[in-house]
């Protein structure tokens, strides 16, 4: 490896790296830097005024709160789904396995109107929930449903491979030493799965916070009640308040970067955990 650093056999290093850096800068880095530069046109007081306005703060509360709840729901049910797919055989398994990725492939606007049709007052599911006094569409609960839909594959697809690679000998050893099935899960399996599960949770959360298309149809977008933060950016833009939109975007970007760091750390942990146990 050190030899190739001094003398590269393969051609094209400068060309491909140069093109990669140029394209990355042009499409991603420079435009993102524009957000931070634009926000600098606001004074600190103005910036704070925009990002701490009550209507904006209400959107953080909704976006972050519901995204956390959705990610938690996905962590629980995603783990069960991954478990079912790896450990049990049942008819239609390949179909279920393939369809797990639907939220990645289905355009968010389509998901949005489909969920709204299901959960509206007269919808397939809504008509049964309405008499119970449960309103989903056009309420924060609707946002939750959309974010659960969007985040599910993140958990399943991070947990599933780790579960598949899990060495059964560990379980057999534990069982032969007299451990109950639940104890084995709790003390042998879960510790190995935990980093992957947390990674899936963080990925689902990160995606949920920024999600727009699937949410706006079902949310109803009532100020102070069911507005999400990305919608606030759009609202400001439609009022030609570019600086205001940018200030909120900066808040979201900083959060995204922090989440990205966290996720990278978690993934390194996953690799270490599973590598050690293999």
């Amino acid at each position, binding site marked *: 490896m050190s030899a190739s650093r001094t003398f590269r*056999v393969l051609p094209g290093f400068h060309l491909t790296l140069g093109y*990669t850096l140029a*394209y990355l800068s042009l499409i991603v880095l420079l435009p993102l830097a524009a957000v931070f530069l634009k926000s600098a046109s606001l004074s600190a007081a103005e910036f704070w005024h925009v990002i701490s306005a009550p209507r904006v703060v209400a959107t953080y509360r909704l976006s972050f709160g519901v995204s956390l709840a959705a990610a938690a729901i996905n962590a629980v049910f995603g783990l069960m789904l991954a478990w079912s797919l790896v450990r049990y055989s049942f008819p239609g398994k390949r179909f279920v396995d393939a369809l797990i990725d639907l939220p990645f492939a289905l355009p968010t606007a389509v998901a949005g109107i489909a969920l709204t*049709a299901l959960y509206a007052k007269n919808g397939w599911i809504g008509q049964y929930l309405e008499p119970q006094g449960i309103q989903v569409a056009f309420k924060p609960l609707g946002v939750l449903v959309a974010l659960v839909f969007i985040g599910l594959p993140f958990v399943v697809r991070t947990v599933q491979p780790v579960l598949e690679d899990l060495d059964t000998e560990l379980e057999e050893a534990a069982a032969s030493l007299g451990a109950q099935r639940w104890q084995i899960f709790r003390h042998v399996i879960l510790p190995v799965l935990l980093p992957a599960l947390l990674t899936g949770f963080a990925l689902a959360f990160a995606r949920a916070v920024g999600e727009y298309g699937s949410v706006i149809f079902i949310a109803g977008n009532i100020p102070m009640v069911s507005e999400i933060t990305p919608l606030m950016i759009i609202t400001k833009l439609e009022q030609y308040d*570019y600086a205001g939109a940018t200030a909120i975007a900066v808040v979201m970007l900083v959060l995204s970067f922090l989440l990205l760091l966290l*996720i990278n750390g978690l993934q390194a942990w996953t690799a270490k955990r599973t590598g050690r146990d293999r």
Partner: protein
Amino acid sequence: MSAATTLNWTAAPRGDAAVRYESREATREVPWVKWTILGISLTFFAVFLLLPLVAVFVEALRKGWETYWSALIHEDALWAIKLTLTAAAISVPLNLVFGVCAAWAIAKFEFRGKHLLITLIDLPFSVSPVIAGLIYVLIFGAQGWLGPWLAEHDIRIIFAVPGIVLATVFVTFPFVARELIPLMQAQGREEEEAAIVLGANGWQTFWYVTLPNIKWGLLYGVILCNARAMGEFGAVSVVSGHIRGQTNTLPLHVEILYNEYQFAAAFAVASLLALLALVTLAVKTWVEHRASGGSQSREAHQDAAS
């Protein structure tokens, strides 16, 4: 080659790996636990994933085939289809070339800052699509930095097709690269180095040695990239200006119809996108099967041996 793959398809009846767990006392649950877990997870799957998909098609056909068909061949819908295909036809090849270049540089060479570069390539995935649209409005919009200059030269980017393409390129940026980087890293560079030593030039090496090794991963990345390119809503919505018959992509057309209470038409157009998603998933499953065919049959062998 083809004989070997046929053999894989037939010789591996895809002996469900789960049997390996269920056949042993130590790795299975008592029946009631198993059926509870299975029941809960499959119900969750049906309610949250299957039902919305079914709803799209049922709602689309609610008013009959005639309404369905007329919504699809409406002039605005046809324009939206054309624009969506155009945006994908530009952004997918751009990101494909980028993905291959980035993967070549990262997987075949050692340099400082590699991890940072990989993280930066993933960046567009963690940025809200709305912000992806906003950044281009800040640069090319009427009030943006280049806005006055663009207006002077009568070039429209925002509220026009170039803006839509740019936003699409941004949101689909990492797809091909992130599929190829781990794949090419895992394959190492011995084969390419051997080809070079034997006298092949760089292009021949890539074409005859690297490409056959990465073709499934490449296809996989392209499919996912294409699905996102055709389905992107948030980012495109910000830069498009929603001008009917001019800057409306398919997802935006769905939104407009829906907001005008033309539900059947909205779902009809949406069903096209849902079909695209299903085709994407089918091809993806097939590619995964092809790519992992070897390793799976190996697993089966190990299983049989143990």
